Every structure is written in structure tokens, then in C-alpha cells.
């Protein structure tokens, strides 16, 4: 099927079989390897992308289903100030170990802070409940997200 959608702010037109997942389209066909392939069952969240701004598991979206919609991966947020703050906090707070979950984790955190700039710890935990990390035990990830929220607030005039 011929599909047209917006990927990281740019219009993309491509061919995708109906049984191709958005995950495979992004990773294999379009080369966006920041989108990780984990469980392929919607359990691990490594393949998280934003669909019209909302986090979804790209392994559970069929490529043709994004027709006319906007898909955002980490690659589209390189220069985004909120993502930059999250990235900095994750690095400085020691929230990254092997790194495999981090793209998904950052996108879930980004979607949270976009909607809710001063989340409680409980709200942060809910936001990342669909992102499994087998290294950190989550504590430092939660701290980094809270920290990023604070940094962003403090930077505002």
C-alpha cells in the first residue's frame, strides 16, 4: 500500500505491505534505528514513538495506519529544548546504563512533560509504566525526569 505521513516534521511517501508494522517501517526501511525492537508484543516500550504527539508502541501499529498522521521519533527532537533538558538530566543523573530502553523512555518522559510540566513522582511512574528497563531499577530514571522538569521550570523567566 502507498502511504503518506509526516515523519519528524517532514512529509514521507513510501510503500508498505499491510502486515508491516510501523516499527519495521521506521527501523528497516527508513533507517531510524533509535526506534528499538524489543518484545514485539507491546510489553517493553523500547519501540515507543509519538503518534500525533501521543506515545504508542510502534510494534502494535500497522504501517498503513499512520496514513495522514504525524510520527515523531527521538531523531525529530534533537534540537527540541525539552528533549535537550531530558537528555542532559538522563546523562548527568546516571539514568542510562545499557541504553536500550532510553529512546522509548525519553519519548514517554517527553510526552508527559509536554502535557504536565510539574509531574508528581507517581505521575512519572505512570508515564513510564510501559517502558521496561532491566538495568537501572528505575530510581535514577524517575529522578532524571523530575530533575528535567525542574530545570525547565527554572530556565523560564
Amino acid at each position, binding site marked *: 500500500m502507498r502511504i503518506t505521513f509526516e515523519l519528524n516534521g517532514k512529509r514521507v511517501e513510501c510503500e508498505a505491505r499491510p502486515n508491516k508494522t510501523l516499527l519495521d517501517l521506521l527501523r528497516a526501511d527508513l533507517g531510524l534505528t533509535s526506534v528499538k525492537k524489543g518484545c514485539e508484543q507491546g510489553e517493553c516500550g523500547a519501540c515507543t514513538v509519538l503518534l500525533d504527539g501521543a506515545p504508542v508502541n510502534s510494534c502494535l501499529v*500497522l504501517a498503513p*495506519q499512520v496514513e495522514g498522521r504525524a510520527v515523531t521519533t527521538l531523531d525529530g527532537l534533537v534540537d527540541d529544548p525539552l528533549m535537550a533538558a531530558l537528555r542532559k538530566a538522563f546523562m548527568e543523573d546516571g539514568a542510562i546504563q545499557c541504553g536500550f530502553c532510553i529512546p522509548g523512555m525519553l519519548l*514517554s518522559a517527553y510526552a508527559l512533560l509536554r502535557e504536565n510540566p510539574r509531574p508528581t513522582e507517581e505521575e512519572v511512574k505512570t508515564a513510564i509504566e510501559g517502558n521496561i528497563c532491566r538495568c537501572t531499577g528505575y530510581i535514577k530514571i524517575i529522578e532524571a525526569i523530575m530533575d528535567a522538569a525542574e530545570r525547565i521550570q527554572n530556565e523560564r523567566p
Partner: protein
Amino acid sequence: MRPIPSFSLHRPKTLSEALELLQALEDARPIAGGTDLLVLLRDGAVSAKHLIDLGGVHELQYIREENDEIRIGAATTHAQLLRSELIAEKTPLLHEAAASIGSVQIRNRGTLGGNLCNASPAADTAPPLLALNAEAAVASTGGTRIIPLGDLFAGPKMNSLRPGELLTEIRFPTPPAGSGTSFQKLGRRRGLTLAVINVAVYLCLEGGVCREARIALGAVAATPIRMPAAEEMLEGRQLSGELIEAAASACRDQVRPIDDIRASAEYRREMAYVLTRRALMDAWERARRDTL
């Protein structure tokens, strides 16, 4: 992991288009959020020649109140349910159930109709809707029929829809003043988990007397089920801790759970008592607060 077997994908824009496709195509299945179906297709547990994607059928996404009745379109996502002030205010049990489903990612895709038609005995939205006395609108090219929600569940992972039929709407009476509800879920962990058991309760009080009681449990039988024996013990009576204890105990006797990977039948039976008691106490307190 194995790829998803191939199929043709159809993307109707209207309900009537979707119903016509469902009627005309052989071996066709609707796909809503896909959070269950795509996993089942990949595993080979389900197969289909044609998938009819309901994602573009926007007329199936709504939450509205009309004539003291709340109506929810079947393709409404769990995230949309969670954002609805009407649902949070009038039916907190449904709000709480939606919040307990999957993860943010799953709730952004998964739909109410999908959760119900998937017909898992553990479906989190089923007990609240049974306790709210919900009805289901089922459409085909031949017209629409309204069935009690309980009739939608035919068995574990089996719904009662006939070929060519689609669940289009869930509707239930708006809980009146003096009513209270509760949803309780026990899982192996808190996030992203299927229920070991789940319980929903609706109580309506009139001057301290229980006028109506509805109790529904999930993951304790082949389908989500109501507990008529326990309900009868409460209706027409002055509520008390003792009476609630007895009604919860009756649920323990009525459930027919199985042993599975998440829990033993024995444990589920005991938890049916514990969670029903907890839900009844919670709903009772909320009903009293609602009466004041």
C-alpha cells in the same frame, strides 16, 4: 520473532462502509487498537484474510450523556475515557478501570469495544460496565440490535457476535444521586498487568437502605459475571459491615475460577471475597458521601 502473516487491510471512513466490508468479505475481522489482535496474529492464535481497520471510523469515537444515559462509541480509546470529565465524575469505577489497563502506550491505542469483544475473562472494563447495567449496540448491514452487555461474552476469548456484526456502542443509565461505585483490581504487579481478579460494585442507597446493588467480577469464571445471590442479600436491607461481609462471602461461593499462570483457583476464590468486601465498603462510603 515471526512476522505477522499477510492479510488485506481495508480502511473504511464510515460505519456503513465498515459494515458492508464486514458483510461482503470472507474471513474478515475488524481491528480497532490492535493491541491484542496484532499479538494474536503474530502468534498464529488468530488468522484473517481481511482486516477492517476501524481507526478511521471517527463516528465510533464519542462519550456523551443524553436523557440520563451515558453512551460511549465502541472505538473510544482508554486514553479518551481517562480524559473524560463526565466519566471521572459520574462513573469513577470506569475511570479507575481504564487507568488500570496496560500502559500509556496501550491506553492510547486500545479501545473500549476492543477490550470487550476480545472477551478476556479478565477484561478490566467488563466488571464496571456489568455493574452499571450496560447494554451493547450491535450493528450489521441488516440493522442494529441491543443486548445486555453480559450476553456479549460467550466464553473465554469468545464473543457472541454473529458474522458481519460489529459492536458499535455501550450505553448505561447515569448513576443517580445517592449511588456509589468502586473498582478493585488485583494484579501480580501494579503497572502493565492483567488482573488476577477484578471486582466492580454499584450501590444505590435511599435513606440508608440499599435500593440497588450490582456486583460483577472478572477472571473468576469463563466470562466476567454478575453475582445475583450476593446482590439479593443487600437489596432492600439496611447496609452494615456484617451484611457486606456476608455478601462478599457469598461471592466466594459463587465464583468458579481456574488455576493459571497468574494465580491458583483457591487464591482467586479467597481474593473474590477480599476484593468484593473492599469494593462494597468503598462504594457504600461513596454512596453515603453522595447522599449528604
